[in-house]
């Protein structure tokens, strides 16, 4: 039995403790916004927040998430989340969209910590998130846009 605090709810799950958090989120809890892209922490598609920090759920054992608060894209809220999602829509960042849950989660985490990120800050925070459609120009612009939205 693993006890998980996810999206504000406590869940008891009958899974092996070493099961990756990603597959618990997707297959056990049916939350499909968090994506599988590589399984080895190299693409960021599976990014969720653990106590507000972005982590790769594909490479985090579910047991290691016990005692922490997990948030997936389905439940993000707050000023940074609103700004990021509004900016993403405003600039039409997405193409295929498959990486974008992870991109959005990383961007929210960045803006929650640093409300005026430079291009270098963006590179550092976002380079773990691959986008094969190469929407990077717009991801960068949307993060700057969201930072501006948060000021007002």
């Amino acid at each position, binding site marked *: 039995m693993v006890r998980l605090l996810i999206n504000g709810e406590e869940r008891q799950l009958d899974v092996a403790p070493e099961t990756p958090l990603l597959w618990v989120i997707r297959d056990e809890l049916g939350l499909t916004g968090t994506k599988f892209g590589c399984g080895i922490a190299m693409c960021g598609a599976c990014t969720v927040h653990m106590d507000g920090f972005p982590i790769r759920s594909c490479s985090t054992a579910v047991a290691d998430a016990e005692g922490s608060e997990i948030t997936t894209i389905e439940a993000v809220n707050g000023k940074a989340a609103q700004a990021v999602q509004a900016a993403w829509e405003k600039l039409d960042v997405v*193409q295929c969209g498959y990486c974008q849950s992870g991109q959005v989660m990383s961007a929210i985490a960045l803006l929650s910590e640093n409300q005026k990120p430079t291009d270098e800050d963006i590179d550092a925070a976002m380079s773990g998130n691959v986008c094969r459609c190469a929407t990077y120009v717009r991801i960068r612009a949307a993060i700057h846009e969201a930072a501006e939205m948060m000021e007002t």
Partner: protein
Amino acid sequence: MLAGLKDSAVSLTADAAPTAAPSRRQFLKASAAAGAGLVIGVTLLPGGGKIARAAAPAAAAPVDPNAFVRIAPDNTVTVAIKHIEFGQGTYTGLSTLVAEELDADWSQMRAEHAPADATLYNNLHWGPVQGTGGSSSIANSYMQMRQAGAGARAMLVMAAAEAWGVSPEEITVAKGVVSHAGSGQSATFGELAERAAAMEPPGEVTLKDPADFTLIGKHAPRLDSRAKSRGEAIYTMDKTLPGMLTAVIARPPIFGATLKSFDDTAARAVPGVTDVVAVPRGVAVVANGFWAASQGRDALTIEWDESTGETRGSAEIMAEYKRLADQPGTVARNDGAVEEAFASAARVLEAEYEFPFLSHAPMEPLDCLVDLKADSCDVWTGSQIPTVDHGAAVAISGLKPEQVRVHTLLAGGSFGRRATANADMVSEGVSVAKAIGGRAPVKVVWTREDDIQGGSYRPMYFHRLRAGLDENGNIVAWHHRIVGQSIVRDTPFAAALIQNGIDKTSVEGANTLPYAIPNLAVDLHTTDVKVPVLWWRAVGSTHTAYSTEAFIDEIAEAVGRDPVEYRLEMLAEHPRHAAVLKLAAEKAGWGEPAPAGRARGIAVHESFNSYVAEVAEVTVGDDGEIKVDKVVCAVDCGVAVNPDQIKAQMEGGIGYGLSAILREAVTLDGGRVEQSNFHDYTPLRINDMPEIEVHIVPSAEAPTGVGEPGTPPIGPAVANAVYSATGQRIRQLPMSLHGLTGA
């Protein structure tokens, strides 16, 4: 991908189906679905004919699938999108065409994938095949979708005229509202939908004068942005059915090997594993979730028969290609008297280029969900060629065509990978479902390792180019030899795409070289290698643009000419190439010094009838680190339906191409793929991405595609810039092989 099918698709099957000749009359067909409002379809009637309203379906029937436009009483307009949305924007682009002629308000537009039905939803450039590729979605749908919109509009107008007792000519439609100024009446589409469905459809519709466009050429935001920014979009990976099982497949370690025997004792002991079954592609482990299936696969012991497999390494294959290049190949183009011209040339230059296998690595690993029952088979997948996928499901399930349904879902990228002649995802899905007796719905999921190691690569190629120059530095002779595998040989596409022994996809971009060179020959050696290969974003142009545009740059430099002027002199007969080249050069400040520390390179290339020139500005560090700082791109794709999406596709195409030329390669050692995931098949990341500026040439020509054409020029533009920075000509890709790395 699917380059050239547009020219010859009718030969795909014997009974010639209507093709996309713009002059062909199209006819509207409408039907009323009770309670669902107006349903309008446009079908091509090959022999001409009158428009007929389809027989009204039974009261409880679902909405007629024979439709492109559905106007519901809730005032939404839903467009059935016949081309898969995998990032390139078909949901938005095709809906824009409908909304334009319908005079809908953009906020009421919705999009959904059309079902697999090649008679209704075929690609008009391909004949009787439904599919997406060759950057053809907008190009083949431009008139069809506009006619669908115009037909629906006409019926709404007739309904309003009848309701208000006024003449249809006095009625106007704007932003989703139908009005009559004289009487002050107005109504929404939703309010008129039921009545409109009962109208006699118009015989023919008049399309708008482009001067009156309010959406085409303007900004229509993507219809899928919101869902995709919130994790709400459903891909095949996310689709579930009650009781669904998940399967992963152990496939042979080398291409062409076959299964000898396996021991599944340990695999079956993994909690959650329900079945271990042999399927044509290997051994499938089926479980109640992905993780158990994957653990089960790790626990398999398998013996493969490798005697029939490909055991060579990349180096051996390339060495053989080089040997082959010493022999004449099959002629793809032969203008003038090439060898005589070389014999009398004042100077001859030669260069050789090597290209590796490339993986598409779409962000969503391949996947397919199948629900097989005794008398039905439902398939959900990112279907790029529903006609092929449907055919494979029919063949493997043994059911009748009408018992098999293919449901296209959003796909997390493709870049060509989902357009396979053997329907690999669907074939595997149905095989596994059959092997477990259709006991439960089952989804086959590929891991990233399966994807990188699973073949269907952009082929390896070797190119040898020679140019003969006269004493003034003009090119008088050109010889281009290409060695590599055919993408379409032994597939159903061969009849359409291989002519006189030449696979068009191997030579496109080389045999269409636009430069005015009087004596020009291109020949091809098609090789036998047991590695499955496939079209990869821009297909032949991914290598031919590189070799031709890098070589032209080399020649210009050798004869002391400016690379832009030198090209322009040879492009008098190709004004669209010349125009994008000039525009990109001008916008990039070509001829003026580059910013401190940066060097520039330029390239121009046409693919899928779209013309793109790119100027790359690069910095090469002392450690060999290439930083592509900025790319200025000029594109001519005819009428620009959605300028912002054209920009997005240029940005994405440039990033995708850059990723490949900087450091992507699939290499074999003893037949085994050496890379396995994103740690050694290393995609471009945000810190590598240049600033990109896109300029669109205003044009009234028929619209052409933008999904692929942004990709080919970036390689040679960067290569030429790297030369300018370092004096080093990169003729073997990726650039990382030369001690040069992406930033």
